[in-house]
Every structure is written in C-alpha cells, then in structure tokens.
C-alpha cells in the first residue's frame, strides 16, 4: 500500500511539473489550453493502444509488437469506409456522414478483432513454449501489417476530408478556437478507462483476468480454461487498438508511420506504468501524452527543433528503462 501511495504521489508531481512547464513556456492561456488539450487527446489514443499491450503482457507474457499495426489498420479501415472510393464505398448506401462514421468505427473494431483472434489462435498459440519466437513473430506480424496496408492502400498518407458533425464543431475559450472532436475523443477515452476498470474489478471474467495476471498456472489448476481467456483478451486488446485508430483517423489521417510511432509511444506508456499494471497504464498514458504535447510545443516555439517532438516517446522510454525498468506501479524484479 505504501508503494502504491508513493507511486501516486510521483505521478501527481510529474503531471504538475509538466503542466507548470507547459504554462511557463506558453505564450498565452490559449496556447496553454491547446497544449493540454492535445496532450490529453494523445493520451487517450495512447491508452487505447497501451491497455491491450499491458493486459496481454500481464496475462500471457507476450509483448505484442503488432499492437501499433492494429491501430494503423483501424485508421485505414475507418478512412476507407467513410470516404468515397477505396475498397468499400458506402457513400451511396449511407449518405448521412455521422451514421457512416459510426459504421466505419464498427468496421474497424470488427476487423481488428478478427485479425487479433487469428493472430492469437493461429500464430501465437503454437509458440507458447518458445517465448523468444513469440516476440520475433509479433515483430514480423507488425511488418506484415504495414506491408499489407502499403499493398492495399499504397504508401501515400491519407488525410481525412469528409467531415461530419462532431469533427466540424469548434468552441472558443481564452480567445482561442478548440476543436470539439478532441473533447469527444478525450471523453470516450476517459469513459473507456473507467469502463475497462469496472470490467476488470467487478465482473467474473475480470476477476479471472486479474487472477491470470498474478498466476495463470494457478487459474488453470482451478479448472478455468485459461487458453480461451487468452484468446478473448487478445481479441479485445486488438479491437480496442483498432478502435483507437478509427477515432484518431478524422484528426490524424491514416499513414504507415502510425504503426511504429504509436507502438513505441505505447510501449513507453506501458513500461512507465509498469508492465501488466492497469492503473499504471492509465496514469502512464496521461503522463506520456502530456509530455509529447508539451515537448512538441516547447521544441517548436523555443528550440526550433521539431525533431525533438517525434523523438520524445523514445527518449522517455530509454530514460524509464534506465532509471526504473520496473515502472511506477510494477513490481521490482
């Protein structure tokens, strides 16, 4: 309990430090607001990738290097369904852009879940006795996903052009315009953080998952089909990542670079929070998301070094691994 408390205090101090730094380096309240908002926006997307990564690792000791690939696939599928042309053209069947957006998210979730289930059932299951090969395999799958996207949708990044109601809205605060879509994503993100936490805490399957994270052999000994739980969790994790890609696409578009950048940022989140710890992942997402936004603002405004912003997740990851590889909420090994 004491360690938990120190972890919380550390997190609050770090977030406060980031906010103070952001306030000190912003020109006015407006830019400060934008930094914080885009930090939280980034944080929620990271959470959607990282939560699956963390639970999957905790439960089955597989670090899924393809998790970023699922995010990217989600973005491409959502883009394809929502826009005219492409593989599936729904503009004729469903002229209403809002409804079509809802449908495109659903399509992304379904495809993410199907691919995730296939990956666990078909490819990872034969390899549980050989952990190094699982690592190598998911690394290979992440590249296959990128190459498949390159093959289907070409290499040119897409930017979202077909607008719909939530995406178009703006509100003004401190004489600065903010997009409602960011708020929408942040809202969904917080909702999911709470929903997944409740799922893990209050439902039977959640209890089984948490017990499995502690000791999956023991859960199996109690007569529970752990393998089925593995498949379920893996599928769910991949679906959530694809969902993240789908709701990110209206803002970030769809590009191949998403795969590795979100994977590395999400790994940074998970390692910072402590591999396998749900609370750590949620807190880590907010920290890393804010840090990326603050660094982006700072390096663009003061250092004239925009490259620093894209290197932030890697720098954070390397720092955490060096200073405290067990993360904030992880057990010391």
């Amino acid at each position: 309990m004491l360690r938990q408390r120190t972890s919380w205090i550390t997190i609050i101090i770090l977030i406060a430090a980031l906010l103070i730094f952001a306030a000190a380096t912003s020109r006015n309240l407006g830019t400060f607001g934008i930094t914080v908002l885009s930090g939280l926006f980034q944080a929620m997307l990271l959470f959607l990738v990282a939560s699956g990564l963390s639970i999957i690792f905790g439960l089955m000791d597989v670090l899924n290097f393809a998790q970023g690939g699922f995010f990217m696939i989600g973005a491409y599928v959502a883009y394809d369904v929502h826009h005219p042309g492409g593989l599936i053209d729904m503009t004729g069947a469903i002229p209403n852009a809002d409804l079509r957006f809802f449908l495109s998210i659903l399509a992304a979730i379904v495809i993410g879940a199907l691919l995730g289930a296939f990956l666990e059932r078909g490819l990872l299951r034969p390899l549980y006795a050989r952990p190094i090969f699982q690592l190598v395999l998911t690394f290979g799958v992440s590249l296959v996903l990128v190459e498949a996207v390159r093959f289907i949708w070409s290499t040119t990044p897409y930017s979202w052009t077909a607008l719909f109601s939530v995406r178009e809205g703006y509100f003004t605060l401190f004489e600065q315009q903010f997009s409602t879509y960011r708020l929408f994503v942040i809202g969904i993100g917080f909702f999911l953080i709470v929903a997944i936490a409740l799922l893990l805490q209050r439902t039977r399957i959640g209890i089984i998952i948490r017990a499995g994270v502690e000791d999956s052999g023991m859960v199996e000994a109690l007569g529970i089909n752990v393998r089925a739980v593995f498949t379920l969790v893996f599928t769910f994790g991949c679906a959530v990542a694809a969902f993240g890609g789908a709701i990110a696409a209206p803002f970030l578009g769809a590009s191949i670079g998403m795969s590795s950048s979100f994977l590395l940022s999400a790994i940074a989140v998970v390692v910072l929070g402590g591999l396998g710890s749900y609370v750590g992942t949620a807190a880590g997402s907010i920290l890393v998301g804010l840090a990326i936004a603050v660094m982006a603002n700072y390096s663009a405004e003061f250092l004239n070094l925009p490259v620093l912003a894209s290197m932030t997740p890697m720098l954070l990851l390397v720092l955490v691994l060096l200073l405290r590889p067990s993360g904030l909420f992880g057990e010391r090994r």
Partner: protein
Amino acid sequence: MKERAIPWVFLLILVSLIAFPFIVALLTGSSPLGVARGDRMIMRGESVRWQAVLIEIFLLGILAMSYNLIFGFTGVISFGHALFFGMGGYTIGLLLEFTDLDTTSALIFGLIGGLALAALLGLIIGLVSLRLQGVYFAIFTLAVAEMFFIFFGRLQLTRAEDGFAITDLPVWLDPTQSRLTFYYIVLAVFVLTFVFIRRLVNSPTGAVFKAIRENEDRASAIGYNPLTYKLIAITIGGVFAALAGILQVILNKKVGPELLSVTYTVDPLLMTIIGGIGTFTGPVIGASGLHLLDTALREQIVTIGSTTIRVADSWSLLLGLIFIAVVLIFPQGIVGTWMRWRARRVRLSSPPKGAENPVQADH
C-alpha cells in the same frame, strides 16, 4: 568434436567463388571487367551483373552472421541491429563528403572510425541496458535505433530524408568502375568474418556464449559473468554490422536514413531464422537464398484472374509471410532442420552410445 579444421567443402566453395566472375564470363562470353568506353568502364554484361548480385549476398551475409552471433549464439534478442549498420555507413560517408581529408585518408579514417563508433555504441548500449532482461532489452534497442533513424531523417547537414551521394571514390575501389576488385575485397571481408566468428564461437569464450543462451543462471552459477560475455558478443556483432554498412555505402555510393531503418534489423533476423539460428552456415544460406529469390522474382508479374500483381510491389509482404511461416513451421531453419534430420538418420542406423547430443556439427 574432434574436427576443428576447415572442411574441404568450404575450401571448394571458396575456390569457386574466387573463380566465379571468370566462369560466368566464359559461359556467357562477356568480360569480367565490364565494357571499356574511352578511359572509363561501363558495367555491362552478365559477369559484372552477377558480381553485383554476389556482392549484395556477401554484404547481407556479413550482416546476418553478425546478428547471429548476438541472437543465435548468445541468445540476446536485439531489435536495433540497423543502428550499427547505418552508423558505419554514415561515418564513412560523412568523412568522404563533408571533410577536407583527401580520399585515401578519408577512407582509412572512415573505416576505422565507423568500426570504432560501432564498438563504442555497442559498449554503451550494452553497459546501460544488458542488465535488462529479454523483452526489455529488445524494446530498448528498438527505441534507440528508431531514435537515430528519426534524427538522421531530419538532420539538414546530411540532407535529411534524401541522403547524399558519395562522389569521391578512387577508381580502384569504385564499384561502377572496377567492380571485379570490389568483388574480391568484399569476398575477402566475407570470408574473414566467417572464419573469425567460427573461431570465436568455437573458442572458450564462445562456449560461454552458448552456455548463457542455454541457461543464464547456470552460466553465472559456475562463475562466468553473463554481462561481460553478452557485452563482448554485442560489441563484436556491432562492429561486423558496421563493416557491412561501410561496404554497402561504397557499393551504392549513397548514404541515407534508410540505412538506419528497421529493414536492416529485419533482414538479418529473417535470414538468420530461415537459414538456421545458431549455426555457422545458416545466416549465409538464408542471405543467399533470400537475395537470389528477390533478384529472380523482382521482374516477375503474376496474373491471377483479372488482377496483375508486380512481385516487386509485394516483395516485402511476401518476405514477411515467408518469415511467419518459417517461425511457425520450422523454427530451426534450413540448416538446423537438415542437421536434425541427419542426426536422426545416424541415430537410427547405429544405436547411440551414451546420452550425447548429436545435434552439434560444424555447420
């Protein structure tokens, strides 16, 4: 293992590789030197074309062997091998193009500097991160390599994403002028790498590498410090990867961030696994097999029904699928599977005397 001498098969292969440009030249009636036009040489004809293919194979072979030393023999999984390859290339490129040194000294300093930088990077990365276990080390190396990739992709000095061309090569080394010389240089480096890694792995140090791979706790319990030996493996592996990078830059006369991209981590990983992890010939067989397949298929166009697919467009996808299939179906790779099969035949034909481990031949 009584036999430690180089088997005659290797000597035979070496002799045929030395004679290779001339054999192709004889068979196709082309010159191994290319076609002379004025005082310049034009690289045209079957012999020089095949020399280029083999040079590529040797390069990839060196890279794969260096990766195998770390992954296959020591059991450390690194996802950042491209870092060493690319930094070797960047060092020699920067010295050739961005300093006032004359060409010869730039080449010498570039070679020494590139290798030294790789050794230094290997030492630093190893020192700070090897105490991390398996998956954390893989993450760490991936993050560091990605950082360098992004950095050099944006660095204006080295023309960011476009990279820069090497214009300042002496005629005797220039692969577009005297490819035959370069062929023999790369062949020599390739053979030296092979012999060196074979010697190293068969030495007492190499025995500790393998002990760490099999069971790290036991290796440290009998008094070896696994950290030290892993550090040796990753540093030496890094130096050879940098050597491959330097040769690659001279071959293509171009330096760019793609040298640091994840491709040069995946390729050696793939080649090692397909050829056979922890075997001497495996990475080389993987490298030659994949590169020959690549050259053969690149020009092909496949027609399925009404859709035509150019293989060149989907080569990486195909490669990834082959990779997954190999990991799933025969993770021992070509050489490993063959050695197992042979060991089983030997066991079946003559009953074993005692419980020795037959899967350990000199391949």
